[in-house]
């Protein structure tokens, strides 16, 4: 199995650069099969993060407000050249902090601080009517009563009509019925080794679970962001344990 994948011998996990294309033979066929156990692969063999074909509403669930990993997962998927509308509910700001533009690297940002979830949802819908935005990001804490299936369905329809991606981030929310086309659960994972400093955190990594999607099979991946692309990581860093898990 190791032949087809370019794994680095020695401790630690290392991102898989590419998956072996399927034409190489049985060894790489096994390798592809090993990865297939956890999620779909496009036909040419490169793993790509499942992204909706048209801009639509995607929901991100963070386990709690103290885990800020979802932001690093979200930002590379947004076009940074166009204006971004970022709406934060007041309680989300209190618990998880306010957006810091110096850390985002966007060309243009409009930030809205909404008093409650109702105002935040209204602002998101208004933002989705403007076709010149790159995306609308809304942060909501917990499970407010106003965020029900109807509200999410309206957001999804508005996003698809105008072609503006909408990201609804739920900090510490429960996954009830929702009209979102893709629903992720994002948790921060241990980062990759830093190339120069063994003690420093390296490239960002997450444990991303797509538990409901239209057009994709749900799956759970360990993903890392290297060179501005999402790469797969084996779920645990230990290769022997990994083989046992897959073939036992």
């Amino acid at each position: 199995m190791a032949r087809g994948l370019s794994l680095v011998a020695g401790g630690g996990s290392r991102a898989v650069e590419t998956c072996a294309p399927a034409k190489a033979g049985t060894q790489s066929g096994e390798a592809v099969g090993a990865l297939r156990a956890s999620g779909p692969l496009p036909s040419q063999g490169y793993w790509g993060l499942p992204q909706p074909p048209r801009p639509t509403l995607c929901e991100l669930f963070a386990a709690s407000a103290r885990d800020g990993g979802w932001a690093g997962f979200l930002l590379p998927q947004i076009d940074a050249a166009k204006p971004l509308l970022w709406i934060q509910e007041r309680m989300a700001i209190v618990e998880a902090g306010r957006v810091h533009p110096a850390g985002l690297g966007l060309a243009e940002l409009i930030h809205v601080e909404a008093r409650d979830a109702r105002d935040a949802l209204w602002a998101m819908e208004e933002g989705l009517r403007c076709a010149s935005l790159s995306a609308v990001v809304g942060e909501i804490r917990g499970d407010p009563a106003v965020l029900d299936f109807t509200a999410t369905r309206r957001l999804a329809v508005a996003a698809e009509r105008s072609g503006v991606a909408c990201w609804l981030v739920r900090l510490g929310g429960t996954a009830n019925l929702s009209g979102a086309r893709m629903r992720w659960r994002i948790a921060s994972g241990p980062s990759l080794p830093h190339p120069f400093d063994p003690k420093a955190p390296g490239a960002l990594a997450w444990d991303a679970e797509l538990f409901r999607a239209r057009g994709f099979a749900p799956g759970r991946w360990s993903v890392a962001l290297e060179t501005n692309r999402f790469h797969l990581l084996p779920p645990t860093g230990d290769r022997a344990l990994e083989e046992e898990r897959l073939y036992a």
Partner: protein
Amino acid sequence: MASGARPGMRLTDARALDPTLLAEPADPTGDAALLKRLARWAGRWSPLVEVDPSTARGTGGEDGLRLDVSGVAHLFGGEERLAADMERSFAGLGLTARIAIAPTAAAAWALARYAPPPWGEVSSRSGDGGGLRAFVPFPPPACGWHPPAGGELFAALAPLPVAALRLEARSVQILERLGLKTIGQLARVPRKSLQRRFREADNPLHALDRALGRRPEPLTAAPYAPSPRALARLAEPATHPEAAGQALERLVPDLARQLAQRRLGVRRLHLAGYRVDGSIAGSGVATAIPSRDPAHLHRLLKDKAAALDPGFGFDAFALTASWCEPLGAAQDSLVEEPDGVGEVAKLVDRLSVKLGAERVRRPVAVESHVPERASGWVAAVEVPLPLAGGVRGGPVPIVRHALPPAPSRKREGEKRPHHLLDHPEAIAVVYATPEGLPRRFVWRRLVHDIARVEGPERIAPEWWRERSSARLRDYYRVEDEAGRRYWIYREGVINDGRGGAPLWFLHGLFG
């Protein structure tokens, strides 16, 4: 001045003559703006007011107003009273005014500036130089200009120096070399001999004619255009709350028409409902870029109109565009074209009207390396929209805070968190050595074991802004065993003399 200091002297010379002189830097743009406002204010005496375009020699800049007071003097009880009223009003503003009333503008200019004390009355007032009043007892022409009324005007102008004719310095020099020092001497010279010595543009003979009224010198008053306003009067008082909404459907197209005629776009709108008992209910709306699109303005005003309280009933409604900016006609002709900047501006308007202007904001880079100050925010309706941004990490508009502007690009290797807590939260940290890397911290009652650390990044306090007891911060980028990444800092170093043991805080969250 009494001590001998005169305008045009060097500051050191003037100070030598009078040590109590105060020196203030000149502000020509501020003075010009003030003069424009004074011109508007001087409309209380005359409808035609103009800021004097000619500069007074030696002082530079504009510092005069010309008013056409034909037919106005009787409203104030005579010219003397008019002049006294003017002087009192200007003194109330703290300005010393030299006022002269004469049949022609040039003569009034000359008298106000150059009339020597024995001619007019000198009224000394609390020692600040006093106001000089000089007037010629002439009825001013009722309309247009008349041939000169006679010798009194000439007699008033004759003793004044030739510089009072508003000539160029060179012409004045030539005249003085020729021995013509006063206007009276100039007038006695035969015209033909002076005609060919001076250029057409700056001929002292023409200036003399203008002063004596033989040549017209029209006054172009600064146009005063009232703000565009749409008024709707109701036939009978309306007490139901939808009255304002219905009136809006008439007011907005009317106002849009007026704006289109004057090629203006509105930035601030004010809707006022006049009640039967005399009180006024009003609310305002702002836009980010000038607009006169009726649909957009109607959408912004709808909710505000519905929120007006009728009280005993509305009699009339007025929609005023209190702040307008020029907006070319070309904008209208692009029908339904998706214009990125315009669309975003309209979105910002809608959000600001409903949620409040201070809740919809844009980032503005501030000259500070303290992280919570470096990201400044400004209301999105106030800031003109940034030009089409470039790539990731592109520049954002900079606000200068008494420091020269610095490049706005993110410095290499400087990592900043995605989210920053408004108030850094205190955490309890366990570390191996006092200046070493942290090992474990407790935040919001949960223990985080630190697996990876990067740091410290030292951010010293801005000594020019903060107290001397402010402590530096050593920032660490930490990752706990679960992978969550935080930005924490230690405030102060042990034994730095500014406090006890340093405290630790959590400032931001990384992705």
